[in-house]
Structures are given as structure tokens and as C-alpha cells.
């Protein structure tokens, strides 16, 4: 007598992989959204599909729901990361109003987010399952492991959040600090490859932070100053303290990204 054990995760992984391969063969990209949900029925599935298709008519949407693992998978043929992200906002709003969402939504777009291998999709699925019970935020899934780490020290929440999101999407591991002392503590504990700091920081200012970092680890090219202070004197003082580069606010993210790439050798 043969005993067959049904492995839902493996089955859904293979099914997703097949969808992604078919979709990427037809068009340039394929977006995938995973959402941990309970009690999805064919009617709600149809409603969600209709809503997502209505919001972006260029996308061909397929929804798969697995009762065993309770994860809703949305495959968006032709979905870029931007399009898929927006579709996840629509899906989240729908699932929340129906009280079906049970955790974080995971968003990815292939090949933008990496190569869709079996292990990558399995990890993607695992993340969605493990997010059950957490706040219903939207998170991105990237197949590459972050090798370069960056610490951002800035009291401005918006700037910190923005740089963090952008760098995480580019495959960096990002740490945050709101003041100079916190930044120095994080630096000593985690030794990031690069520090991006504002000059006007509470407790320890930017110059003191740079000097402390240089004293702790004298490898050059560790710190980029990102500040709204545009005076030539401050610029020279920052370089004298040991800064490797100086970027002024208002911020141009492309300029900052290039400077980070140059200093970390992460091309």
C-alpha cells in the first residue's frame, strides 16, 4: 500500500513557478502578490480579480487560493514592480474591507526582483505564510541576499524611510538611526560597509560622528554626508573630518545611489 502525503507548499510553489514562466515567456515581466487570507470563496476571488483588472486593464490577472496554507496568490502577467505594487494596494484595500487579510502582503516582480527559481519561490511563499498575524503591511521580496550594509543617520523620518526603501530594493541591508549617538552605537555593533549621515544630528553631530567612526575604523571611504547645509566651509570641514563624499538636500536619489555604488563597489 502506498501512502501519498500531499505537500501543499511544494504544489503551490510549482504551480506559481509554472505561471511565472508562462507569463514571462509571453511578456517581459510577471508580478506576483502573496497575501495570507482566511475563508476565501470563489465569489470573493472573482470580486478581487475584477477589481484588480479594472484598476489596470493592461494586466492579465490570475488568482490562486490554497485552503491548506491559506495564502492568496495573484499572478499579474506583464506586471512591473510599480504596477504590481499598485495592484497590491488595491488588493489590500479589498481584503481589508472584507476582513479577510491575516498578515503582510508580499510583492515581487520577475525578473526585476531576481531570477524565479524553485527555491526563491518557495522562500517567497514561506515569508508570506510566516507573516500571518503581523500588521497588514506591504513588503517586497528580493531573491538576492543583501551583501552590502548601509547605515542611515538622519533625524528626518521621510528622508530615512525613502533611502531605506530605495536601497533595500537595490539589494542593500539597511540600518537606521535618528541621532548621532544611536548611529555610533549601531556602527560599533553592526559595522556597516557605509554610513550616510546628516550633519545636523542630535546628541553627536555629523562631524563628531564621522570622527568617531574614523577613530574606530580608519578604512577610508566609509561616510557620505547628506545634508541641507550647502556652505563651502561645512563641506571642507566634513571632508577634513573624514567624509568620503558630500551630497546636498533637496536630494537626488540617483546621485546618491551612484555615490553609494562607487564607494561600496556594488556595481
Amino acid at each position: 500500500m502506498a501512502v501519498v502525503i500531499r505537500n501543499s507548499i511544494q504544489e503551490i510553489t510549482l504551480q506559481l513557478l509554472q505561471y511565472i514562466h508562462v507569463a514571462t515567456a509571453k511578456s517581459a515581466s510577471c508580478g506576483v502578490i502573496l497575501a495570507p487570507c482566511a475563508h476565501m470563496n470563489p465569489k470573493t476571488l472573482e470580486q478581487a480579480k475584477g477589481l484588480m483588472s479594472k484598476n489596470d486593464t493592461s494586466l492579465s490577472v490570475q488568482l490562486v487560493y490554497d485552503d491548506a496554507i491559506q495564502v492568496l496568490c495573484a499572478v499579474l502577467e506583464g506586471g512591473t514592480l510599480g504596477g504590481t505594487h499598485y495592484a497590491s494596494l488595491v488588493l489590500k484595500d479589498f481584503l481589508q474591507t472584507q476582513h479577510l487579510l491575516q498578515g503582510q502582503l508580499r510583492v515581487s516582480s520577475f525578473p526585476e526582483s531576481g531570477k524565479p527559481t524553485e527555491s526563491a519561490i518557495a522562500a517567497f511563499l514561506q515569508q508570506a505564510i510566516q507573516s500571518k498575524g503581523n500588521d497588514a503591511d506591504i513588503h517586497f521580496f528580493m531573491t538576492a541576499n543583501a551583501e552590502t550594509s548601509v547605515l542611515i543617520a538622519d533625524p528626518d523620518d521621510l528622508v530615512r524611510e525613502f533611502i531605506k526603501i530605495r536601497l533595500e530594493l537595490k539589494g542593500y541591508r539597511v540600518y537606521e538611526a535618528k541621532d548621532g549617538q544611536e548611529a555610533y552605537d549601531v556602527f560599533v555593533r553592526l559595522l556597516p560597509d557605509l554610513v550616510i549621515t546628516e550633519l545636523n544630528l542630535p546628541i553627536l553631530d555629523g562631524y563628531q560622528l564621522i570622527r568617531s567612526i574614523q577613530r574606530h575604523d580608519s578604512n577610508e571611504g566609509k561616510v557620505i554626508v547628506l545634508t541641507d547645509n550647502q556652505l563651502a566651509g561645512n563641506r571642507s570641514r566634513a571632508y577634513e573630518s573624514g567624509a568620503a563624499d558630500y551630497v546636498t538636500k533637496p536630494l537626488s536619489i540617483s546621485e546618491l545611489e551612484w555615490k553609494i555604488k562607487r564607494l561600496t563597489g556594488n556595481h
Partner: protein
Amino acid sequence: MYINIEVAIRFLYVLIVLNVAFAVVVYAMKIKNLKRTRTERRFEVKIKDYLTYILIHIEGKEPLNLPPFPLNKAEQKAMQERLNDIIESFTGTAREKCMELCRRLGLVQDHLDRLKKGSYSVKIDAAYHLGCMRVQEAVPALLKLLQTHKRNSSLFVIARSIAKCARDEQDVQEMVQIVLRHNKGFYDLLVDMIKEADIDHGALFAEFIQRESHEFIQIGLCGLKDYTEPTVASTVYRLIESPDRTIQYKAMEIYLKSVHFIPRNVVQKLLRHPMDEVRVLTVQAIADLKLARYIDVMRSALLDESKRVSDASAKGLLLLGEGGIAQLCEVAAEARGSERGEYLHMLIEEQIKSLSLQPHDLDQLTRYNSLVYHYEKTLGKNKRIYRVV
């Protein structure tokens, strides 16, 4: 007596009623405020993901989509605040895409209408938001509002908004002209506002200093003080002879900071200037630019009537190489016995002491050796001072 008590009781009743009425009003306001804060907080949770969406795709090729949920008035206000922050924090495509999103959200039209039809406070609020969103078509209405506005802090809110929205230099010039009518020296504040405009600031400041009006010249000079291009030096040179002392000094400061070479006739003219601040600046500029050909001028400045000039000149000569150091020691030896001579002597000895502590720096080491050599040679002290090799 009886009548008085009755009146008093009635009066008390009136007071009680008024008290209750005011308490109700205060509580109603408080509840309204709390409700609004709660709505805003709830909305912040709701829009967190949408704002993340904006931040991620703010520089991409695709346009930003509108929120996938409807917004009521309070939510629209909270959204406006977030978008203002984003516009102020970024430049280039990011800023433009966000401004375009504001337009599609209907925020631009809404504030344009408020600017036209609202009450005074509504107009000021609309002016502020239109400035944040850089709405160029709002400039004529904003200029009109600025024209009739009295001098208070709101005047600057409108003026800054005009600078942010400015279509060209003309708009900024008009704004400056109106603000200057209030006849107060807001020069630095105006420069700060002008720098918010999307125009060639340097060219505008240069144009301002060509004018006859002292106020425009002052703004131009305040604006140019951080520029170090040689073209700026030639622009401000004319003002070095201005009859206004403040303008003259500011022009001199900019000239000496941006120039790469100072002709001899200019050096001589500046060192004859009655203000010792100007002479100090000149001597410092010669030293900073390492103009060794003016060692003779620096030597004469050592004996300037102002101690500040003499001190700056001595320190400057130390930076002009072997020749400068030799001249410094020579003058100190010649003036020995006089107050100035003793002062220079003391300054040289202090420098020797300070330089001897920096043997790791090649420049300082060379300076130290040279100073010690000339010190021994000219001032002929007996105690032996060793050279560091």
C-alpha cells in the same frame, strides 16, 4: 433691598447660563479637534502603503497612480501635508512627478479656488500650499495678494510662495520690489527666498548689484557671498569704491574670496583703505592665494598702525615660504626694543613652539626649519634650537 437680591439672583442665573454655554463651546471644539486628530491618525495608517508606493516609484518612468481609495476633506489635507514634505525633500523627476500627482488629485485647483474666493486666513493657507506645489499659474494672484498685504509674518509666506512658483526672473524681481517697499533690511531673508526659485540665482544677484538702488545691491551682495567664481570678482569690483561703507566692505569680502589673483594697484589701494577690517582681509587674501610677489607689501603691513593688520600680516608672511619668513624675522630684528618689535618677537617664538609640535606634517616641518633658521640668524639668540629632519 428686596429688588436688589432679585437682580443679583437673575444676574447669577445669567452667569451660570453663560458659563454652561462657553463650556459647551469649548468641549465641542475639543471633541472636534480630537475627532480630526483621530481621523488623521487612522488615515496615516491607511495611506502608509500608498506613500511607500510613491517613494518607491517617484523616479520611475511610469506616472504615479492616484490612491486606490476615495479621500474625504480631512484625508485630503493629511495627504497634502505628506506630499508637501516629499516635494520639499527631493529635486528633479521626483519633485516633478509629485507635483503632477498633486494636480491630478485636484489639490492644485482646490487651492487656486481658495486663493481666489477664501477669507484672509484661507488665502494665506492656500498661498502656502500653492508655493509648496510650485504652481506657476498662481503667481499673478499671489503677486496681487502681496501688493496689498501689510507687513507681518504672512507677508513672507506669500513672498516665499511666489519665489517657489516663479516662472522666470521677472516674477522674482517683482516680488522683491514689493517686499522692499516695506523699507526694512530683510536682505538675508530675501536671498533665502530667491534661492527657492527655479532660476539662475547667480545671474539675478549679479543683475541686482548693477542697479542704482542700494537695497538691490545689498540683496545681490548677500546672495553672492557664497560664490567663489572669478567672474563674481569682476562683477563686484565696481562696488569696492562705493560711498556706502557696508556695501564697500561686503563687495571687498566677495572680491577677495572669489579672485584668483590681485593686481598690485588693487592691493595697494586696499591696503590704504581707512577701515582696518579691509586691510586685514587683503593681507589674509594675499596669504591664502600664496602671492609671494607681494612679500614687500606684507612687510610694510607689519608696521601698520593697526595691531590686527600687523598680526594678520605676520601670520600671512609665515605662509609665503622662505622669503616671507625671512622678511618677518628681519622686521622683528629691526624693530627690536619697540612695542611692535617685541610683539613680533613673541609671535615668532609662539609659532616656533606650535610648529615644533607638528613634525608629522611636511609643510609645517619645512616652515618650522625655515623659521628657526631665520630666527637664529636675525634675532641671534644664544640658546640652541635644533632643526627637525
